[in-house]
């Protein structure tokens, strides 16, 4: 069921949930969207390689000036996101979007709020490490830093990878990301409250949420314009605004000095009429309790506010998706929806399986007998 399909109805959405795999629906429904709502299937992963990825994830030496790691923005205590409306960025810049969670990111088809990477997490890793306002790392230096650390050298060897290389680093981090899948949410364990159960019915039915928030992670991995208001802090703060300009320049957005709105998925499709401006990728609805504030720019503080936003038919935008309409949900219905959304949050991924135990030194020991051993 595509969000853009004007003929869809609440009943067909409900049908979709039960008729998975139906030949009748297959012609108009993508596999992701037709899938059951949950639970999230764990990914198979290579323990040793994922362990390398885990250490790399928490290692500040993966950024150009060794000031930040992946975890600086993707904080395990905050659902591998963080609580700032707009993310931090590499030193010297500041962010212009909310940090998305990495939990279940392995289940996505496209990444970043604008969906600019639609290939795989290896590319996402490369983009995040090398982009000048994210980690600004020359990956050749990264490789040599990792090769300088005997702990990594040993881990790579033990994992059957030989010596560290930047290509393997880009494989190791996605291997770790495979471990970040939701588990234990009341929705999955059958322990939802009565209110949450009512919320689920609304979600599939009257509220129409499921038309975009579908599948096990509750996302169709498609861009939509819901009219989320701009975050004025981007445009009033030169540290954020210049970062946006650099991004827009790099992404080939026209007139980048004069725009004052986040173009979103326009960077995927570059439609000449600009009708794709302001579309953002449907986020997953899992682990929301850890990841406030919400929306691509962090402008909505609570889940109650999110539900109220959609109850009002979304925001104001000339390109807003026409299928967003006022929902007429009562206060109780809205509360039920919030209860349902909260029931999609599982166990925190804050234990040693997901957080590197101990500190990672940013000092480098010299290689002994340097002149007589191969580089």
């Amino acid at each position, binding site marked *: 069921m595509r969000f853009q399909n004007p003929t869809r109805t609440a009943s067909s959405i409900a049908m979709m949930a039960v008729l998975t795999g139906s030949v009748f629906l297959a012609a108009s429904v993508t596999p992701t969207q037709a899938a059951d709502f949950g639970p999230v299937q764990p990914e198979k992963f290579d323990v040793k390689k994922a362990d390398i990825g885990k250490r790399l994830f928490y290692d500040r*030496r993966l*950024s*150009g*000036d*060794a*000031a930040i790691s992946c975890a600086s923005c993707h904080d395990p205590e905050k659902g591998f996101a963080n609580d700032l409306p707009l993310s931090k960025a*590499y*030193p*010297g*810049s500041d962010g212009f979007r909310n940090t998305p969670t990495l939990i279940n990111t392995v289940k996505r088809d496209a990444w970043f709020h604008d969906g600019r990477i639609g290939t795989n997490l290896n590319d996402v890793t490369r983009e995040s490490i090398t982009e*000048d*306002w994210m980690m*600004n790392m*020359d990956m*050749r*230096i990264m*490789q*040599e*830093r990792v*090769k*300088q650390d005997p702990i990594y050298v040993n881990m790579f060897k033990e994992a059957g990878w030989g010596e560290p290389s930047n290509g393997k680093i880009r494989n190791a981090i996605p291997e770790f990301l495979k471990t970040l899948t939701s588990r234990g949410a009341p929705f999955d364990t059958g322990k939802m409250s009565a209110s949450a159960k009512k919320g689920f019915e609304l979600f599939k039915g009257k509220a129409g949420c499921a038309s975009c928030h579908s599948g096990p992670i509750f996302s169709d991995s498609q861009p939509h314009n819901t009219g989320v208001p701009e975050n004025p802090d981007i*445009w*009033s*703060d*030169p*540290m954020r*605004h*210049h*970062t946006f*300009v*650099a991004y827009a*320049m*790099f992404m080939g957005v026209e*007139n980048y*000095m*004069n*725009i*004052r*709105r986040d173009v979103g998925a326009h960077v995927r499709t570059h439609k000449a009429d600009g009708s794709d401006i302001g579309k953002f990728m449907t986020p997953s609805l899992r682990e929301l309790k850890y990841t406030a504030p919400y929306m691509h720019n962090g402008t909505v503080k609570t889940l109650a506010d999110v539900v109220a936003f959609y109850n009002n038919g979304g925001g104001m935008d000339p390109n807003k998706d026409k299928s967003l309409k006022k929902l007429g949900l009562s206060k109780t219905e809205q509360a039920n929806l919030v209860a349902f959304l909260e029931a999609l949050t599982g166990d925190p991924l804050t234990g040693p399986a997901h957080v590197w135990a101990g500190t990672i030194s*940013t*000092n*480098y*020991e*010299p*290689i002994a007998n*340097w*002149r007589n051993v*191969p*580089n």
Partner: protein
Amino acid sequence: MKNAKTFNVIAAAAFMSTVSFAPSAVLADGHAMGPDINLPLAALGNPPIAADNPTSPAKVELGKMLFFDPRVGGDASTACSTCHEPKQGWAFADGFSRGYPGTVHWRNSQTIVNAAYYGKLFWVGSASSLEKQAKSAAKGGVAGNGEDDIMEARMAFIPEYRKRFKAVFGTEWPLIKDVWRAIASFEQTLIQKDSPADKYLAGDKKALNEQQLRGMKLFQGKGNCIECHNGALTTDEKYYNLGVPAPERWDEDGLAQITFRFEQYAKGNTQEQYRKIKDDGGLYYRTKEKSDLGKFRTAPLRYLKYTAPYMHNGVFWDLREVVEFYNAGGGTNIFTDGSMAKSKTPLLKPLGLTDAEIDDLVSFLEAYSGPEIEMSPPKLPPYAPLPMVSK
């Protein structure tokens, strides 16, 4: 050494009667042809100004601000001046330049003073203009580590720069290429041509004392320094392997080892070379000719008093050490002893200089430095939001 320019050859031939045509005619860097003529020492004139980047006081002033502005760099903490610090001879007073945060460089930072005169810049001549040098340094992973888009974007949020770029370059928004052009114009003002040696060469026979004059004679005679350090620039701008020893820092410092390998990787070495090499391959990285392993550009001699340590890797901490190195006929490294190459220039031979003669030579070298060029960093203009223009 050899210079293809006819004018220079004639001028030199007319002046230099004592300089040999020497075995060096077939050696040197292997590229030149024709007789080996050493240009006479001469006073320095004004630096050349590229026709496509004419200077103006406003451009120089803007370039000065940009030279000191760390926002022209990756994390807004390193400016040109970070590694070319006015108080450290417009260079950096350590063997290796300090490098971008989280890194160390792998070569000695060269002074900006008189950079405007040279045909090529960096230790192996990898930049052909001041503009290109500035750009490479601001973007290099162990130098400025900046990217064009973010640096250009930052400039747009500094109202004072918008005004100045518009006045100087006529653009609505600052362009990154004009950042390099303005910096080049500023660097053309950092010149030293009033050293005692320059005054002497310009005709003031009292500008050098007795010792310095003895040193000058040795420079052109027994020391044969003029073989490469010749002409008004005191450099033939060619490349030689002198056998400068590899710095011990590579044996002792993990950070330096990282950069060493990164450079082998980044410069397009073969896998075999990457594994094996344990010293800076120099000109080889540009030409990929094995005969160029370990070669570096003849360093100019002005402003030396302020720019210790010396050589491409900063292994010598004073000028006496440098002269003693040449007196011993240069040194050895993996590009001289055959373990990777045998590219040492045969021009270097033990000189047999006495201690007193070494002192004389050092005093002459010091006479190529005039007053220190002092400058306080300019006050840098702040960021400000752009007006809310609706699209």
